[in-house]
């Protein structure tokens, strides 16, 4: 778990989150500072305006009724609860008090004018700390000193509360952001770590491992699913390659072993012209078979590997079918088989003539070799529902249903046909050619016999 945390803190997602938290935090602090300062300024401004208004009222009282009237007004205010937080003081020119709720004129501010903030013991002498006061000092025309003010501890208390609330707010935001970014990052890192762990497991022990899904169907599950299906495909391909190389090894060994045996036997006996000649002929025939096998293999993998659709031309399937049938006429005759073509006039597809010819030739070759002796092989080309179809049917023993998918595998040969010549690559080639042309292959029961059907997409659509 601590490893995961360390990874979380190192991850790029987390670093980005930190950068954004910093930027976001700075903005929030600036905003909150503004709120604080403007609130404090507003509260203080209101209090100052109230003090200034009082001052004007009292000065007016002095102007109209003189010192006595002013003293009465001050006494009146002190007695009224409405002015509880207000402080008033009228003093003689010598600062001897005349009226007011301060015990004495603040000793440090004798002779001050205008606004002053001060802590006055003269206000509430029994309080532990003298409260903060704010007052306006003035000297009346007769030399008396007038002081009008308010206790501002309340205001400061209010501003302080706002400040505290804002500070808590900022702190809370930072904590939440940090927690959120750690948990989001941790989740991300956790999913990536699952993928990494699977990759490492695959590197160590083969392609069998898969990335676990969480069943949330989110983008991580989708990624994991895609990677898993990619692994699936790779595994299949590798298995196929392995199968092919095993088969190549097997099919190579047979002719090579034959050649070695032959040479060994020849080595042990006297040179003999006729015997040696037949030995050389047989060995060359075996080597030719091996070479042919290799060129078939490379041909198939080339067809499978490259996208050659750019070299496609419009070709007439009927023409190809007729030519294949004509070419195989002699071979069919040898097997006493009937080979017929039933073709529509023009069935056009986009394709590669060489490859299509080769594929159809392989199907016909199979049908003749594996069909019934003296049987009937029919090549049919039709156009229906916009798709071109070519089928090759025989009336031989057919292929058992459970074997049908296997026959497209390279080197696969049915038990029943082991003894007929061939290398088990023909149908692999047919399958590769069909795939290249986007054609579907079907194998059907011809009752009796087997029918291969290639269905091509119409040229208009492809």
């Amino acid at each position, binding site marked *: 778990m601590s490893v995961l945390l360390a990874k979380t803190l190192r991850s790029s997602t987390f670093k980005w989150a930190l950068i954004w938290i910093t930027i976001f935090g700075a903005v929030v602090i600036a905003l909150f500072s503004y709120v604080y300062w403007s609130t404090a300024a507003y509260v203080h401004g209101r209090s100052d305006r109230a003090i200034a208004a009082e001052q004007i009222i009292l000065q007016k009282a002095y102007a109209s009724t003189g010192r006595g009237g002013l003293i009465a007004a001050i006494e009146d205010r002190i007695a009224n609860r409405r002015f509880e937080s207000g402080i008033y003081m009228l003093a003689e020119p010598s600062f001897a008090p005349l009226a007011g709720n301060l015990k004495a004129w603040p000793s440090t501010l004798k002779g001050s004018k205008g606004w002053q903030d001060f802590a006055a013991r003269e206000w509430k002498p029994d309080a532990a700390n003298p409260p903060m006061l704010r007052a306006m000092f003035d000297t009346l025309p007769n030399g008396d000193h007038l002081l009008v003010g308010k206790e501002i501890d309340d205001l400061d208390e209010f501003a302080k509360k706002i400040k505290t609330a804002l500070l808590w707010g900022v702190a809370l935001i930072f904590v939440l952001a940090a927690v959120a970014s750690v948990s989001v990052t941790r989740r991300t890192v956790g999913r990536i770590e699952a993928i990494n762990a699977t990759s490492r497991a695959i590197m160590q022990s083969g392609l069998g491992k898969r990335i676990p899904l969480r069943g949330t169907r989110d983008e991580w599950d989708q990624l994991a699913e895609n990677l898993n299906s990619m692994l699936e495909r790779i595994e299949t391909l590798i298995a196929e390659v392995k199968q092919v190389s095993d088969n190549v090894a097997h099919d190579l060994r047979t002719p090579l072993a034959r050649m070695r045996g032959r040479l060994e036997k020849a080595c042990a006996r006297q040179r003999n012209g006729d015997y040696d000649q037949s030995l050389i*002929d047989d060995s*060359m*025939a075996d*080597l*030719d078979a091996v*070479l*042919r096998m290799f*060129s*078939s293999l*490379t*041909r198939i*993998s*080339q*067809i499978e590997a*490259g996208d*050659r659709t750019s*070299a496609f031309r419009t070709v007439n399937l009927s023409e190809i079918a007729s*030519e294949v049938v*004509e*070419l*195989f*006429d*002699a*071979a069919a*005759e*040898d097997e006493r088989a009937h080979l017929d073509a039933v073709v529509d006039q023009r069935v056009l597809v986009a394709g590669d*003539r*060489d*490859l299509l*010819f*080769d594929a159809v*030739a*392989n199907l016909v*070759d199979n049908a003749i070799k594996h069909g019934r002796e003296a049987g009937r092989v029919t090549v049919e080309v039709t156009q229906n529902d916009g798709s071109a179809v070519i089928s090759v049917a025989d009336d031989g023993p057919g292929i058992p249903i459970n074997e049908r998918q296997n026959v497209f595998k390279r080197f696969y040969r049915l038990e029943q046909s082991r003894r007929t*010549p061939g*290398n088990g*690559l*023909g149908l692999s*080639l047919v399958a590769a050619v069909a795939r290249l042309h986007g054609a579907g292959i079907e194998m059907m029961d011809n009752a009796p016999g087997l029918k291969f059907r290639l269905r091509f997409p119409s040229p208009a659509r492809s």
Partner: protein
Amino acid sequence: MGGGRRRLLVIEDDPETAEQLEDFLSTSGYQVDLAGNGSDGLSRGSSADYAVMVIDRMLPDTDGLAVIRRLREVRIVTPALIISALGEIDDRVRGLRAGGDDYLVKPFVFTELLARIEALARRSATVVRETVLRVGDLELDLVARTVSRRGRNIELLPREFQVLEYLVRNEGQVVPRAMLLQHVWDLHFDPTTNIIDVYVGRVRRKVDGQQAYPLIHTVRGVGFCVRAPR
């Protein structure tokens, strides 16, 4: 053509293959010049008059196709045969597009290489427009499209006639299966089945059956040859 008629340039970097080629081709009556890399091949190819150039696709210093392209740029039109271990399909197209005249995939049978070289060498020679071809007692009338031996008519299908015509035109030369498929059917692949043999077998039955001597011979692993007994 003159002295260049029987002179070949072989550009091949593998010394053993080069030596085998030289051995085999000189036994077949050619004078062989060897070049071990592209630049050597380029200078030899552009200075001397050769009947055919045989060029390996993969050379240590350059691509065989580049050599051909460079030679074609300086208007050297000597037929070029590309040999390569690379596969047949796309490379054949690319090789021929680069100015190569024929293509052979390694490993190949020497007889087939020779057959292709001869075909290329002949291509540059004058083509005589005959109307009747003769080998031994066989007669092909190219206008009437009829075949006869010792005056006796032989029935051939149109395609069988083409096969025989191509073999007879190359009398005495080995015609590889793939070349036959290419010239008669216009197909460019090496059939993995024995279908061409079966097809030519039927032509042979019609042409050689109940005759004094056979004309169509099978060359094992390669193809066919039409030859009258000496």
